[in-house]
């Protein structure tokens, strides 16, 4: 029953944050960051199993490993960008949050360039 544990941590942390927020809003933000990290660390073990399964599948079906690693990298970038942006948004800095999101989108686009190039090459080859 890990989910009960995680929900309990979340609820307790929320109550603590509300207690502190009136006196020290900056401390409350840091508390919410730490809560996010703790919860992420609790589920990370399960996630590794999922990633291993995906890489096994891609090996069995002879998919190029470059695509698989690119996909994983994109998921990682999306997670980190989302984490930072949500915290900025919670602290009331919506503009910084949208900049972080923009940076995440640019990074993802940059990582997807080789895939898009190979797709375009394929299309050009088909047309000619």
């Amino acid at each position: 029953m890990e989910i009960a544990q995680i929900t309990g941590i979340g609820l307790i942390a929320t109550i603590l944050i509300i207690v502190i927020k009136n006196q020290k809003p900056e401390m409350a933000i840091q508390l919410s960051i730490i809560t996010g990290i703790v919860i992420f660390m609790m589920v990370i073990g399960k996630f590794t199993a999922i990633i291993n399964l995906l890489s096994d599948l891609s090996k069995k079906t002879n998919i190029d490993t470059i695509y698989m690693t690119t996909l994983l990298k994109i998921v990682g970038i999306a997670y980190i960008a989302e984490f930072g942006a949500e915290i900025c948004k919670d602290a009331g800095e919506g503009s910084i949050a949208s900049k972080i999101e923009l940076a995440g989108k640019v990074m993802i686009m940059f990582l997807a360039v080789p895939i898009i190039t190979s797709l375009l090459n394929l299309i050009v080859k088909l047309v000619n």
Partner: protein
Amino acid sequence: MGVDIIFKIAAIGIVVSILNQVLIQSGRQEQAMMTTLAGLVIVLMMVAKQIMTLFETVRTMFQF
């Protein structure tokens, strides 16, 4: 890493805010400010360490 860090930070926050109020009541505004700043820096160092661990974990997991 466990849940205790959440309680640690919450305790620091509550203690600092109480100290802050006591110091302000006794008319020591600068010391109250310093207490707030010290508490903030201590917690920030803990949080920064944890954020580094998080980013390292994400980086190794998603094979950057």
